[in-house]
């Protein structure tokens, strides 16, 4: 104030006192507005920073992963010599040998043993299984020449997708010059092409990237979520109903409430420790199974479901309850036939969000042995299984470039699930939100 008075006094001595005050105010106002603008800018910058981070994260995952939905196939003319097929049990014939013969027939110039091995490595080891399935499906093909599109090895796949550069020195490449020539021959004969990668969606885990798929993990996740849902939905809703509608105000109720928040605060890895110490080592439940995983995740999702359900119950206005009491309903009737149906959409929203959290959780499942390498597709709750996030973790650790691509693709699939679950929750909330 002192400073501004001096300044104003020196600037204009002849004007009246009232105008001077206005001058001061206006001058300061300009500064204050500038400050205001800067302030808004900081807020905007922080939001823009988080949006940019999200955009960067999503685009890098998509740009790394979209190519995994295509897979390179090579066309082979396989001569199915009846002598090479086992008469009794066609499934046990040496299909690997037949495939090798077919490859050799296309490249008659390759004679050297070492070179042949390099040649065979261009084709996936899954080619033999493909041929076997073909023969078992249609035994009539035996004795004819079958033109079959077989899976290419992941290195070939990476080359076709441009992740292995052709122009770098030979020793820095995973494919040598000769192998490139052989591939060039395939390309010239139009025998190599990229197709939609069905293996990725139908197969279980594998050490070979071109044979690895997410179906096993998807099914594992499905069973685990089923266990989680079956346990946490009734327990969560019953607990919420009790706390909102029945609980007397006393120390025991306070204790329960505090502990629900404490449960929400437990670090996820500790749930894994619990699962290991109690369910596996104490109760001796089977390791790596959706059953144990589901129970552990149930404990994690409970607080989310309870808190959301309580909010939904709170939103039901007292007038509904009073009206029901007014016509002579008992407390239980009021809750079961009036309050619960009105609060159900909110409870379901909370459950969906809790399930989405559980679906993305990894750490506790590592502790109960769900990291094991499991090729078979799980068929039930007590079969060893992997879940989606754990599968992603396992692949992220693999050195092959082709696994980077598949990891990103698996993340995309998982994110699609999670985002659609969250979107469903948002839509439900909007749709069933009632104003009383």
């Amino acid at each position, binding site marked *: 104030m002192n*400073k501004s008075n001096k*300044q104003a006094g020196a*600037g204009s001595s002849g004007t009246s006192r009232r105008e001077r005050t206005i001058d001061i105010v206006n001058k300061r106002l300009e500064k204050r507005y500038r400050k*205001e603008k800067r*302030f*808004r800018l900081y*807020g905007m910058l*922080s*939001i823009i920073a*988080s*949006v940019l981070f*999200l955009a960067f*994260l999503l685009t*890098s*995952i998509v740009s*790394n992963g979209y190519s995994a939905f295509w897979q390179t196939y090579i066309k082979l003319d396989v001569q199915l010599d009846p002598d090479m097929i086992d008469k009794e049990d066609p499934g046990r014939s040496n299909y690997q040998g037949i495939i090798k013969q077919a490859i050799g027939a296309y490249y008659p110039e390759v004679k050297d043993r070492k070179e042949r091995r390099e040649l065979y490595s261009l084709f996936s080891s899954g080619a033999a299984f493909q041929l076997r399935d073909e023969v078992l499906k249609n035994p009539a093909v035996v004795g004819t020449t079958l033109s079959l599109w077989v899976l290419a090895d992941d290195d070939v796949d990476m080359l076709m997708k441009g992740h292995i550069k052709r122009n770098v020195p030979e020793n820095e490449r995973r494919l040598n010059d000769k192998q490139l020539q052989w591939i060039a021959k395939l390309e010239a004969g139009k025998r190599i092409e990229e197709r939609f990668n069905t293996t990725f969606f139908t197969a279980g885990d594998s050490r070979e990237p071109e044979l690895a798929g997410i179906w096993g993990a998807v099914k594992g996740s499905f069973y685990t979520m089923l266990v989680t849902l079956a346990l946490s939905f*009734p*327990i969560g809703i*019953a*607990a919420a109903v*009790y*706390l909102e509608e029945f*609980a007397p105000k006393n120390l025991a109720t306070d204790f*329960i409430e*505090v*502990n*629900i*928040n*404490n*449960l929400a*605060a*437990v*670090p*996820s*890895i*500790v749930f*894994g*420790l*619990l699962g290991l*110490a109690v369910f596996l080592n104490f109760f001796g439940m089977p390791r790596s199974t959706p059953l144990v995983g589901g129970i552990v995740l149930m404990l994690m999702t*409970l607080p989310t479901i309870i808190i959301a359900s309580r909010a939904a119950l709170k939103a039901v206005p007292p007038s509904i309850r009073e009206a029901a009491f007014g016509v*002579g309903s*008992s*407390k*239980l009737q009021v809750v079961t036939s009036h309050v619960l149906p009105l609060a159900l959409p909110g409870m379901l929203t909370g459950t969906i969000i809790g399930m989405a959290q559980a679906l*993305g*959780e*990894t*750490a506790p499942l*590592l*502790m109960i042995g769900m990291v094991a390498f499991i090729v078979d597709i799980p068929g039930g709750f007590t079969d060893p299984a992997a879940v989606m*996030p754990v599968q*992603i*973790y396992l692949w*992220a650790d693999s050195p092959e470039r082709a696994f980077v691509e598949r*990891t990103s693709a698996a*993340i995309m699939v*998982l*994110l699609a699930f999670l*985002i659609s679950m969250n979107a469903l929750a948002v839509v439900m909330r909007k749709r069933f939100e009632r104003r009383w």
Partner: protein
Amino acid sequence: MPNATLDSGKKPDAFVLTPEKLRRQRIAKFFGEGFLLVVASFVAIVVLFIFYFVAVDAIPFFQQRGFTEFFTSTSWYPADEPGEFGALAIIYGSGMVTIGSALIAVPLGISAAICLSDVLPFSVRQYAKPVIEMLAAIPSVAYGFFALVIFAPLLQNYGGPILMWAWWLIAGPFVLLAVIVVADLITSGDGGGSERKTIRWTVTGVLGILALVFLFWVGNALNAIQILSGTNALNVSLILSFMALPTIVSVSEDSLQAVGRELREGSYALGATRAETIVKTVLPAASSGILAAVILGIMRAIGETMVVWMASGNSSHIPDPWYNYLDSIRTLTATIAGDMGEADQVTGSARYHVLFAMGLLLLVFSFICNLVSERIVVRQRKILAGE
């Protein structure tokens, strides 16, 4: 005739509460409520259960090895015979990433919350909020993959330039602001009209040049830094800060909203601008809720496993010098996740129990944090309710 329609299909006493009906209702109420009580207390029991079972497996470790080694030694060789179980470096690593992520997430989260609650118009807010909430929907393993496969190589190859740009973006505006404020302060003492303006401009200019030199100097020093490994504390802190962001934003925003219109309108009525209202009225009123948000965000960072396990480098030593965020570290959660695979084969050994000791440490810490933040929120609610 009306009688007939009313009673059709129902027993005559459908609307009469007979004593027998009342008894049935009482029994149903008793069992229903009892069942609900059992289920609700199940949740509370689970927490005690977790505490009990983790502690039961943690205590043998402390009985065998005592407390001193665990908390003061930095040599972590659990697989040796006999093993060494010094967890100081691991606890330090956990603290380091937690503080690092809080340093990034807290200013970012609070300013984003203010922006969402008070600055942005509803039309923009509608879209900005779900985007920030989406950060919470992304699974931690996806963040881990991002940190390991995309961000770590980036940091390793272009670490210097990235640090320099970050320095310019973060420190640049702050230094500019400081120059303006300092120049104002220096020149505010003297009187004089037109000279004062020139003096002010020259002081601002000189200070500005000095500040630019300083910015350049530090920027170049950062640019010259070679990051040996991209899997380090900085990488993890950055990713964790974005994971903690949604928690901090949503809890602080709730607390800002809880301040209510009266205080804001009172401040506007006195002629304050929006920035002044927020900084001098709303923020102090919401400060305890924001503190709770910060604590919850920190808990999220300390309990996170996958990102640190995948991208922190997992070497259990205290970085040299102690504030070196470009060194790789190891945290409590990552140690539990990483070592349990082998330790589980030797159930009952110190190697197995030490991991439970770490779990107990995490558990105790998160309970304390949670209780503190809850106390704070309850107190704020009471104060705002005018008690």
